[in-house]
């Protein structure tokens, strides 16, 4: 027999290294074992992309500052060959990049780190009184009518704004419809307020959601509160008032977020990630760059980090599948198909995900049973199923959109090829072993996917897998050990019960 000792030594080494790495991150970097109640820090990264034409390039981006709820701790940029300058005047901050000549696709990263602090201090610059906006003839009348209607029902700047948004949201309001025909809602609000000499502005805001990539800026309206001498935030669509704690204001001027001279097709997108590193550690973090042991995923750009937040969860899913198959003996159709389904569930939310899965597989099985009567060759049949799945997904998406079920739109996150194979395999199973086996295996897959989903969305699991890379080694060790388990499966305790009782 082969000597198992090296194997066990290897597993032990994995556990020890994993533990050591985790302890190191905990004690030296101060990463807490449990996720904090509220996130301590946010790292937000702007990614600017454009095509340079070969001429000198000047890019300028509005940069964020400390604000209600957030303190800006540090910022950095990465851009190859560009000269960088950060400027500030009258509270307007901007980052500027310049280069003599550049050609082809250009990428510029700007990263800012914020500390979450409900008592954050920041300076407020009082506004100038705006010059009243003048619409062209017909709209001017409509604007005045709307404004005087709103004014009657209001008692100050803020109530007037509230009333304006309410009227703009009223589908039966003719004046509102006429105005919104030509300009955006947020522009309409600010223009209307200026007609009463009320200072208001459109700010660029970002919703902070952990691990999000390719987020876009959303416009919000700020109105000057003359009583409290501060800006009050309004959501121009919903009319919601006040600043939600997960809303970061990137710049006070929505319309001049990014300006690129010497480049075409410029675009900006944002990635963000929450970190639980305690504030005291923030300074110590700076030595991170030289630190070899920490040349970990945390030194990557935020966009890649956000991606790893999901990737690092896959091993947990794999561990669960291994456990369910080797220890429990659950039957699934396709070994790791449930993990992929669970990843889709993370995007779609659980309930929508389950309904979507059942709809697609159910309809797919019906279509497949028709295809099997056509007597096609296998590859053609699978391809037909793939196309059918795509059609099903599009039909359901359109239906969901039409009846206003916006959650239904996320159905497109399902991995289509995998689903097609699942349908094919289940339908063969149905023909050969009957419906019962299909329900056993389909149910097993769904159950596994739900369990994996629950693990993947657990705050604790997300926190641990992302912050403690050492944990991955321990998961690997555990899987290796499970691969050596030769005991009975739970399902066998049932299967062989008649034998044991004899």
């Amino acid at each position, binding site marked *: 027999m082969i000597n198992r000792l090296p194997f066990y030594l290897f597993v032990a080494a994995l556990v020890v290294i994993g533990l050591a790495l985790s302890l190191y991150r905990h004690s030296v970097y101060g990463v807490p074992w449990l996720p904090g109640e509220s996130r301590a820090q946010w790292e937000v990264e702007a990614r600017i992309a454009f095509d340079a034409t070969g001429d000198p390039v000047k890019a300028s981006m509005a940069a964020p500052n400390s604000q209600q709820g957030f303190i800006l701790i540090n910022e950095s940029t990465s851009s190859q060959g560009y000269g960088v300058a950060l400027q500030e005047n009258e509270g307007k901050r901007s980052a500027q990049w310049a280069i003599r000549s550049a050609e082809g696709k250009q990428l510029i990263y700007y990263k800012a780190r914020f500390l979450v602090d409900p008592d954050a201090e920041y300076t407020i610059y009082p506004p100038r009184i705006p010059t009243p906006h003048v619409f062209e003839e017909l709209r001017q009348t409509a604007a005045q009518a709307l404004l005087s209607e709103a004014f009657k029902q209001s008692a100050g700047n803020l109530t007037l704004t509230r009333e304006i948004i309410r009227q703009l949201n009223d589908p039966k309001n003719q004046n509102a419809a006429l105005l919104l025909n030509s300009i955006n809602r947020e522009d309409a609000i600010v223009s209307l307020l200026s007609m009463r000499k009320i200072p208001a502005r459109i700010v660029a805001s970002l919703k902070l959601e952990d691990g999000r990539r390719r987020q876009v800026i959303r416009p919000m309206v700020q109105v000057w509160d003359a009583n409290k001498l501060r800006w009050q935030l309004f959501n121009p669509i919903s009319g919601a008032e006040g600043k939600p704690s997960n809303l970061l204001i990137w710049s006070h001027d929505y319309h001049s977020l990014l300006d690129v001279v010497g480049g075409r097709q410029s675009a900006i997108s944002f990635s963000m990630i929450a970190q639980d590193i305690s504030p005291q550690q923030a300074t110590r973090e700076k030595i991170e760059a030289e630190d070899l042991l920490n040349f970990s995923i945390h030194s990557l750009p935020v966009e890649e980090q956000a991606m790893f937040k999901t990737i690092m969860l896959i091993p947990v899913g794999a561990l669960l599948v291994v456990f369910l198959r*080797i220890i429990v003996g659950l039957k699934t159709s396709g070994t790791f198909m449930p993990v992929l389904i669970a990843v889709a569930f993370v995007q779609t939310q659980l309930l929508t995900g389950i309904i979507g899965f059942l709809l697609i597989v159910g309809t797919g099985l019906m279509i497949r049973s028709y295809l099997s009567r056509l007597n096609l060759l*296998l590859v053609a049949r699978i391809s037909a199923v793939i196309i059918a799945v795509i059609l099903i997904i599009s039909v359901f998406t359109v239906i969901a959109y039409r009846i206003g079920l916006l959650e239904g739109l996320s159905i497109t996150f399902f991995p289509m090829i995998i689903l097609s194979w699942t349908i094919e395999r289940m339908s063969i199973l149905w023909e050969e072993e009957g419906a019962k086996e299909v329900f056993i295996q389909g149910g097993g897959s769904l159950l596994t996917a739900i369990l994996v989903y629950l693990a993947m969305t657990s705050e604790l699991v997300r926190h641990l897998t992302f912050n403690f890379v050492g944990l991955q080694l321990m998961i690997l060790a555990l899987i290796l050990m499970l691969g050596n388990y*030769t*005991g*009975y499966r739970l399902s*066998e305790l049932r299967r062989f019960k*008649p034998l*044991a009782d004899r």
Partner: protein
Amino acid sequence: MGIGHSISARVKWLMMPFSRHFCRPKKLHQRGILGMNKRNHSYIGRYNDRSKYPLVDDKLKTKFIAQRAGATVPELIGVIRSQVHVPEIHQMVSDWGGFVIKPAQGSGGKGILVITHHKDGRYFKASGAELNQQDVERHITNTLAGLFSLGGKNDVAVVENLIEFNDNFVDFSYEGVPDIRVIVFQGYPIMAMMRCSTASSDGKANLHQGAVGVGLDIATGKAVRAVQHNQPISHHPDTRRALNTLVIPDWQQLLLLAASAWEMTGLGYIGADMVLDKTKGPMVLELNARPGLAIQTANGCGLLPRLQKVEALKAQGAAHATAEERVAWCLQAFAT
């Protein structure tokens, strides 16, 4: 006492449905039941060389190596390898009474079409169901496309002679040829059962589809116990034949043939599927590199003690060079 008592009572109450449906691992261990994990890890993984799997995963290859080793196999009528040759089937079988079409790489009874007789382009199954020429051609097309095969790979259709099963088995099996599964461990036939099809198994001899499994005494080839759906039964559900009267004729010869599968394949842990033909005696139907565990239920005893006995024998360095010696040893060692 109150609280402690109520807690333990509650635990018992919670565990009750569990103990009604599940047994304790310790009990299974005492009975020497082989579990799936242990089978995969300690037997298939350890004794079956992966590079030799193709020999048994392809029924055509199995047939050739068995023939070369001098074993009897069902006669090969022909092989259909591509779609253009499909219509040739009618010409191919015209001189044969009954025949069977099966995917070379199928398993678990999938895609096996048994035709007992045919006349003027009309084909009949054992149940009397009639098929026309298109039906038969469609079945072959599906087989070639890999519908029945491992991983859905393209496959070839094997056409072989119908086995006329031994008269002793009349009424033990309903509308299907019963086969005898022998677990052969390093050349030692350690456990056997006969699988008899029933109406609910649709003429297939697959236990999980409702076929009857009859455990066989290694020493004598006599029935020890029979199960259907995991539960003991005494009579065949369709023919009402008492199952305990089953005796396999030519038993030693059959075991010999099974034991020789070790020399044929070099695989240490296999399930040999054997059939008894009326005129030609025991034949190798197919070999299995991942045989199931249901044979334990049919025999009412576990595989582990027998496997370990052979392992111990090997560890002592005992060398039984020929299949005869190994079978002789088994007849003694595993008599029940």
